[in-house]
């Protein structure tokens, strides 16, 4: 180690070494500033418009002239006809998200337990089916999916959305669970089996607790997937009461008189929960995602 350091730092420093370091640091700061502007511009715009009054939107200001939080109040109190069912729709989004997380985790963990721990024959077929689903773009299946949902009698039903989100979240979940499961020694399962545990007990008492970090990562992923998805919710939910927030928001956008400040306030209220969840579970989720990505 010390030998390496000796080589790394020549005894006689070049005279411009300090200046170069300062220049590098300055360039990095400049790049950082550019990145902050680039990243925050659309988000700033969202906040700015939300804090403007209706008349101020149609001006050339880049700063709200008289900032007020009225728009947020209108959204929270459902005080505009487009926002009539806001909390109901918000509840639908939450319901879909929670159900998606639950079913994704249950279905995917059971399937991966069967394939990689119990080593069911031909389990590779299931793994491949999951991988294939992961690679089929969801939007490409929207048209047949829509018609099939109508024939299953699930049109305008939030459960159709849960089915969609679970379908597209489980493949990734299976992928991650199988990767993560390799780090858990199979001897644990065998020991429990010898002690007389049934396969279900092994799954429930040994596999699931040990998989907790992967469950958290995948659960966060599934929640954000369900929260972010728009196309299927737009196609399958048309009733104001079964609708979710993004669908209502887009309807807002397509109406003739667009009250942009209300719309942006709605957008911000809608965007806060996933951002909070994301930052809470960021470390774990990044680990999970990179497990999938890096193992690529």
């Amino acid at each position: 180690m010390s030998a390496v350091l000796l080589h790394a730092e020549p005894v006689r420093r070049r005279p411009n070494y300090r200046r170069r370091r300062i220049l590098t640091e300055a360039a990095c700061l400049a790049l950082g500033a550019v990145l902050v502007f680039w990243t925050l511009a659309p988000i700033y715009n969202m906040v700015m418009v939300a804090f403007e009054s209706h008349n101020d939107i149609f001006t050339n200001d880049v700063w709200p002239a008289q900032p007020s939080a009225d728009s947020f109040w209108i959204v929270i109190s459902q005080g505009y006809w487009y926002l009539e069912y806001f909390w109901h729709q918000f509840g639908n989004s939450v319901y879909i998200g929670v159900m998606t997380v639950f079913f994704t985790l249950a279905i995917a963990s059971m399937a991966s337990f069967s394939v990689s721990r119990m080593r069911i024959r031909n389990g590779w077929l299931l793994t491949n089916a999951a991988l294939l689903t992961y690679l089929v773009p969801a939007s490409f299946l929207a048209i047949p999916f829509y018609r099939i949902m109508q024939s299953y009698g699930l049109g305008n039903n939030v459960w159709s959305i849960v089915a969609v989100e679970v379908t597209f979240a489980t493949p990734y979940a299976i992928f991650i669970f199988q990767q993560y499961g390799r780090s858990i020694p199979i001897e644990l399962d065998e020991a429990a089996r010898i002690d007389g545990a049934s396969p279900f007990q092994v799954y429930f008492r040994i596999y699931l607790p040990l998989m907790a970090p992967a469950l958290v990562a995948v659960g966060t992923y599934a929640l954000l997937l369900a929260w972010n998805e728009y196309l299927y919710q737009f196609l399958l939910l048309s009733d104001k009461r079964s609708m979710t927030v993004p669908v209502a928001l887009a309807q807002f956008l397509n109406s003739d008189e667009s009250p942009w400040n209300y719309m942006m306030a709605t957008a911000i209220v809608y965007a806060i929960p996933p951002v909070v969840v994301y930052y809470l579970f960021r470390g774990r989720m990044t680990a999970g995602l990179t497990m999938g990505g890096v193992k690529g």
Partner: protein
Amino acid sequence: MTTASVFELGRPASARRSLLRAWRGSLQGSEFAWALAFCIPYVAVFVAFVAFPVAYGLWLGHQPSLYLELFDDPIYQQTVVNTILYLVIGVNVKLFLALLLSGFFMRRGWWVKGLLMIYVLPWAVPALPTFISIHWMLNSQWGLVNNVLWDLFQIDGPGWLDTSRWLALGSVIVSYIWKNMPFWTVILLAGRMAIPQELYEAAKVDGATGLKQFVHVSLPLLANLYVVCTLLSTIFTLGDFNTAYFISGGGPALSTHVLATLGIRDAFELARPQLGVAAVMSALPLMIPLVLILMRKLRTSEVQL
């Protein structure tokens, strides 16, 4: 199932048992039942919501006349060009910048860490709110972009979304990069972090610094990951509906549709689901090789870093 049992009847009991064994593997009786029960939910989801829709979609789009009609349609031709530009420029610029920025985020220091927290925001915020925001930013009269242009340089900005096809398509691509670059930067950053520090130290001893280190150490080790990212991202982008739909909405004059949005438009606005499916399916010649390569790569190779 029935044919198998008829087939088995004619065999001696021992052979029947071994056939059963071959199917069940090493699992015994109730264990096999459990293993099967654990699989059934996923198999049911797959059959009901993947296999069946895919088969139904293939059936909907099986008529050759649909494709002839599509290829004659100037809107479809424009859409194909748009999709290719979107994929080639969007994916590659995004990933190249992500590769460079992942190197930047390897720097030590508290402010770089803090900056990373801000930088991942576009990925954490749901797509729809930010795309609506960008859509309004690009409004030619009241949008933030043109307001800033006027305040700083006293020039009237162009109508980004409603005058020219190329401006609108460019806006879509830039928005796409804005939204997706953070995710891939984080992936590539993790790839870089997995490179053992000793390699850099050894390279330093041999006199490699800066650019040389990047070319001879980081790049070869990241190459495989980078290729996987490119392929994966190409597939995801091919299916990306939200960006084009909310930024330009396909306008002006339907000139900036991509295949994903055109398919939905044909199916639901024109009420011609067959045509919509055909539009989407015309991407299969590009998609199938990508999927095959990726399935091999994701299944077999583990990137050894």
